[in-house]
């Protein structure tokens, strides 16, 4: 089974718009939205919810005020400053359980933490696995792993051999979780200094986890000099540029109409994305 994950380092470079078009172009696939923090892919694919699951992950300390003698030991030993005034700030608690083990009157217990939900939906492009991380929750990496795992299971049971994932921005926990073990990463960047800086870092992560990468320069004409710089950088790194997509308002228009670009228009941008998808399928096959 092949799995393509679309990443960018920097946010807002056009990952989701591109994945939406891949959804329309690829024949037989499962779609996975691994940006569990701020999922947007569903806005393009009009999913029909089939299955909904709660996601529990990790623990959080809870202090029983009846038993608490306010000795303050927990506050002293907590490395995450999660206890103040004998109450636990759930958003700071990392669930290590240290406090619950040393509390003299045993007033602290560890409770399972509700961390979000994940869904399986039907779209006219194929099944979509997506999720919603609870507000301010940690463990986004585990929720991403859940989404990927479910996508894989779906693909296996339905005899599908391709998964297309929309990844999160950044280089941390959820990105690593989206990337590790994938067949190919498509890195969508833009010719801005921020875009270049972030591309270099996310390419480093791909290398760290030995996942081959292709680069797509989106909005390539907003700064030709920077685009040139990216081309030179990728050449030095031995990373292939799979597409240069010029800036076009059609991308936003398509988003406003809730449609993948390749279904909304057949002009230049759509054509570039079609070419890009051909390139990716070629790379996966090769």
């Amino acid at each position, binding site marked *: 089974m092949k799995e393509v994950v679309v990443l960018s380092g920097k946010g*807002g470079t056009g990952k989701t718009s591109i994945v939406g078009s891949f959804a329309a172009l690829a024949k037989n696939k499962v779609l996975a939205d691994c940006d569990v923090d701020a999922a947007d892919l569903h806005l393009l694919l009009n999913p029909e919810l089939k299955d909904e699951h709660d996601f529990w992950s990790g*623990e959080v300390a809870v202090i029983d005020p009846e038993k608490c003698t306010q000795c303050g030991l927990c506050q002293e030993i907590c490395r995450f400053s999660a206890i103040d005034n004998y109450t636990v700030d759930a958003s700071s608690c990392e669930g290590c*359980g240290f406090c619950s083990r040393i509390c003299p009157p045993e007033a602290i217990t560890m409770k399972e933490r509700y961390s979000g939900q994940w869904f399986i939906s039907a779209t006219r492009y194929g099944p979509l696995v997506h999720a919603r991380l609870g507000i301010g929750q940690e463990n986004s990496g585990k929720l991403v792993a859940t989404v990927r795992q479910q996508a894989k299971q779906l693909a296996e049971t339905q005899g599908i051999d391709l998964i297309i994932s929309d990844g999160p*921005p950044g280089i941390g926990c959820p990105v690593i979780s989206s990337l590790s073990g994938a067949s190919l990463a498509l890195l969508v960047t833009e010719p801005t200094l*921020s875009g270049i*800086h972030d591309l270099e870092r996310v390419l480093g992560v791909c290398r*760290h986890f030995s996942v081959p990468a292709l680069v797509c320069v989106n909005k390539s004409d907003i700064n030709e000099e*920077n685009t040139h710089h990216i081309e030179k950088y990728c050449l030095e790194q031995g990373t292939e540029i799979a597409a240069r997509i010029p800036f076009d308002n059609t991308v936003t228009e398509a988003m406003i109409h809730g449609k993948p670009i390749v279904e909304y228009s057949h002009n230049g941008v759509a054509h570039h994305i079609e070419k890009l998808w051909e390139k990716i399928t070629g790379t996966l096959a090769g």
Partner: protein
Amino acid sequence: MILSVASGKGGTGKTLIATSLALSLKGRGKVQLLDCDVEEPNAHIFLKPVISGSEEVLIPVPHVDENTCTRCGKCAEVCAYHAIAVFGEYVLTFPELCHGCGACSYLCPEKAISEEGRESGIVEWGHSDTIEFAHGRLNIGEAMAPPVIRKVKELAHDNGTIIIDAPPGTSCPVVESVRGSDFCLLVTEPTPFGLNDLELAVETMKELDIPCGIVLNRAGFSDDKVEAYCRKENIPILLTIPLDTEIARLYSRGVTLAEGLPEWREGFVELYGKIWEIVDERSRCPQR
């Protein structure tokens, strides 16, 4: 005042707003900018600070003295992350899984565990003209951003204006960055993705009880659903920046609005004034 600049969706212009605001406040008291997007820090590209110091971010991970250790297994039992395994004659540690909570070393009956630092990132500080600057960088391949963010925030001054450039999203790195802020400026764009992610960001700020206001970036081209949402939720739109190729070009070269289009400075000063009023009013009637 601590003012965070955040957004649900990435690439809406957080860093451009944070740096332009910082530069526009020149001559109006002490200003410090903390770039807490430690996965992809970009503020330095715009501010071009002179870096005067740096420090590694170290996670305290266990080091087991194999001679003192009796293989009782207590450490493995107490580690919520399974970063230590004890079996037979073996003690294995997995430093990359360790969160540095300290439970194993504290609870080891033989006191056989000491802690050693494992570098997960770096923080750097300096200044750009009159602006004090600090940022953090998570090492490539590292998963946990919050310890690096905490270290950046430790560098915050205790007075003046502190502007925090937060990472995108709504998960733990965002919460870690904006926690303790007096106000959060949410930067969005008038698109379905922008609106969807703005709603998530607003919910996050509500949860944290941080008042927020909106900067609507790249406005004028698409629908007015963001405005409608803000009206419904009673969240003020404090600044509107039009979709403009000139701004996009400046941004691509790492130039702020305050420098590239100085006429914007006044707008940012006004923005700051509005935020100050909201924070001031809230501090006077905290029950509201």
